[in-house]
């Protein structure tokens, strides 16, 4: 095995043994299991409520008992008087009973329930009562079924989403924009979290080796350049592992529990457009790469590991500002947001949102991606240089001077 891979393996194995990385890795899995467990428990405890239906109007009662329940409740048909129903309720055999009074053509339904019984979703029951009432009224008025249907057909109401690209109208699939925005928001949050975590991880990694003077042995064994690339590569492997686990838990979560979470209801995985998935993926990969590489360079500047926070603070501040700006970009297409969506270090948070809501075209998104890729190239070049030059330099002044120069 070449020394490059020896270092890659070592960095990966070492991080796999740290509790922080393991926790980070398992967070989405635990979140997914937690949601699943929550849904499972709430499904288990809320059983279908059992009710009784009582009415002096036998025709009405029969119609209601046989109306569709949609699984909302179960009717105990043998309880046909109020006394029987009351007795069953007191013995907790049923969760509630409905008394329908049809005197004077006025239909009045009263549902009596135990406070400790299972909750009844009453909308379906109400619909059934209304439906039967309508039918009764219609037959009294001598209306045919056809007339009745006509009377109750609602006016149609439809929503069409479109987006404009260079003045040309472009139809979007129904629901598409909402999905895109949800996706862009999720990716922006993930980019931010990954950037912060891995930037500090790699800076810590390098600063610790430097601070503990292991660096002297490392650089006398393996060229600093090779070490640098090996460490960055190891970080990317760790990132990929986490992305895979996060994506897998998200996929399983949406597939199995998606319908039980109101925000995700209607999110159909088949409706994802490959183009936006690709663009978001590129922003994710390049954005995280950029921050990780720059952080590696900054980590090489400090003399001890406790200075890491200070060294990468400019980086985390930019990341936070970009993340905050992504919320502005959701509602605004100001010139600042437009420019920002092309500037590396910020674009990874702004462009995905602008693209998702249709404020930026596909070609604009790709221009921004190319600019980001160029920035990754430059930062790699610069960070290697910093690493080679400063990895054995233990003076404290360098960091101050370097940060001062940057901020000027």
């Amino acid at each position, binding site marked *: 095995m070449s*020394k490059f891979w020896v270092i890659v393996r070592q960095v990966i194995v*070492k991080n796999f*043994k740290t509790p922080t990385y393991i926790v980070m890795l398992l967070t989405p899995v635990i979140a997914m299991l937690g949601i699943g467990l929550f849904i499972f428990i709430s499904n288990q405890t809320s059983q279908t409520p059992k009710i009784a239906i009582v009415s002096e109007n036998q025709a009405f009662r029969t119609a209601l008992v046989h109306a569709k329940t949609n699984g909302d409740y179960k009717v105990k048909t043998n309880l046909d008087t109020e006394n029987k129903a009351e007795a069953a309720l007191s013995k907790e055999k049923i969760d509630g009973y409905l008394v329908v009074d049809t005197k004077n053509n006025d239909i009045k339904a009263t549902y009596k329930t135990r406070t400790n019984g299972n909750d009844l979703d009453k909308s379906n029951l109400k619909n059934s009562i209304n439906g039967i009432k309508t039918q009764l009224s219609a037959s009294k008025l001598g209306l045919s079924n056809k007339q009745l249907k006509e009377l109750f057909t609602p006016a149609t109401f439809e929503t069409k989403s479109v987006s404009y690209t260079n003045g040309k109208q472009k139809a979007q699939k129904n629901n598409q924009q909402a999905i895109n925005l949800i996706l862009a928001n999720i990716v922006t949050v993930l980019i931010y979290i990954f950037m912060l975590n891995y930037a500090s991880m790699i800076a810590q990694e390098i600063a610790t080796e430097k601070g*503990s003077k292991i660096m002297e*042995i490392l*650089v006398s*064994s393996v060229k600093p350049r090779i070490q640098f690339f090996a460490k960055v590569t190891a970080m990317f492997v760790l990132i990929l592992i986490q992305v895979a686990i996060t994506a897998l838990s998200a996929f399983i979560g949406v597939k199995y529990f998606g319908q039980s979470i109101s925000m995700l209801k209607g999110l159909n995985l088949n409706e994802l457009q490959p183009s936006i998935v690709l663009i978001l993926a590129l922003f994710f990969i390049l954005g995280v790469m950029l921050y990780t590489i720059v952080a590696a360079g900054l980590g090489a500047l400090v003399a001890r590991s406790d200075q890491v926070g200070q060294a990468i603070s400019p980086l985390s501040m930019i990341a936070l500002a970009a993340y905050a700006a992504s919320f502005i970009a959701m509602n605004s297409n100001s010139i600042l947001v437009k420019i920002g969506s092309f500037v590396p270090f910020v674009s990874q948070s702004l462009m995905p949102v602008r693209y998702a809501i249709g404020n930026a075209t596909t070609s604009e998104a790709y221009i921004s991606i190319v600019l980001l890729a160029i920035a990754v190239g430059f930062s790699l070049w610069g960070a290697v240089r910093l690493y080679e030059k400063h990895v054995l330099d233990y003076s404290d002044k360098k960091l101050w001077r370097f940060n001062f120069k940057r901020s000027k």
Partner: protein
Amino acid sequence: MLEVKHLNKRFGDMVAVNDESFTLKEGEILGLIGQNGAGKTTTFRMILDLLKPDSGEVLWNGKPFTQDEHDLVGFLPEERGLYLKMTIEQQVVYFAELRGQKPAVTKQKLDSWMNRFDVKGKKTDKIKDLSKGNQQKVQVIATLIHDPKFIILDEPFSGLDPVNASLLEKGIEDMRAQGAAIIYSSHDMGNVEKISDKLMMLRRGETVLNGPTESIRDSFGDTRITLQSPLTESELLSIDGVEDVQQHGPRFEVTLSDAEVGKEVFKKATKNGYIKQFDQQPPTLDEIFRMKVGEGNE
């Protein structure tokens, strides 16, 4: 063979190393002495190609010595560094692997190396659970276990008790016997005198002494006498050419301006026959070291 030719390095206005040259053959040990800031670490870093000299070159068997040759190097830095969370075995295997030795080979050798340096602990013990002395031994093992042909040890004896220091001396001599070229730095003259074939002393980047250990001492002449005789301090001081007399119990340490004066001292001391001790030698390295440091401060 290592050849260092006319190395120069400045950091700003400070001269770190000035026109440094020496050679070191396989099976030779060079002791590099000097105070802090004399240029020892800078010298090591330039030899290891971690720092570019302003001028001069470092050759290994006639070819420039670059990072491509680093598998044959064993380097013990002045400030020790180990991965505290690793076990002894993981640590040694990793460092050896970075020098191109396969893990299986290292694992096979590790037991005998741990015995050799009397490391207290098991291979599966974590580094952080070891005592400082044992950590240092692990570091030494990690430096030597891949049988390097060229070894640099920066202050290897610092922090070791006499028993462990002699284990290390033995280790260094074993490596020499296997044909390694060894440079080490120290400020403990005792070790330097015992195991160095050659000696170089740096003072603020300048080479003030350079050569085989014995000839360096000899070049100062046999100007030190340790004496036990009936002569008193004032009698000794009255002899022409006696510069200084120090009394240590029954002994006198006499400093001469010239080795020839020794004959006069011997004659006077033995005029009544038997004396217990007369030992005329060149100054010890310790004295030479302090003399040279003193010159620099004047």
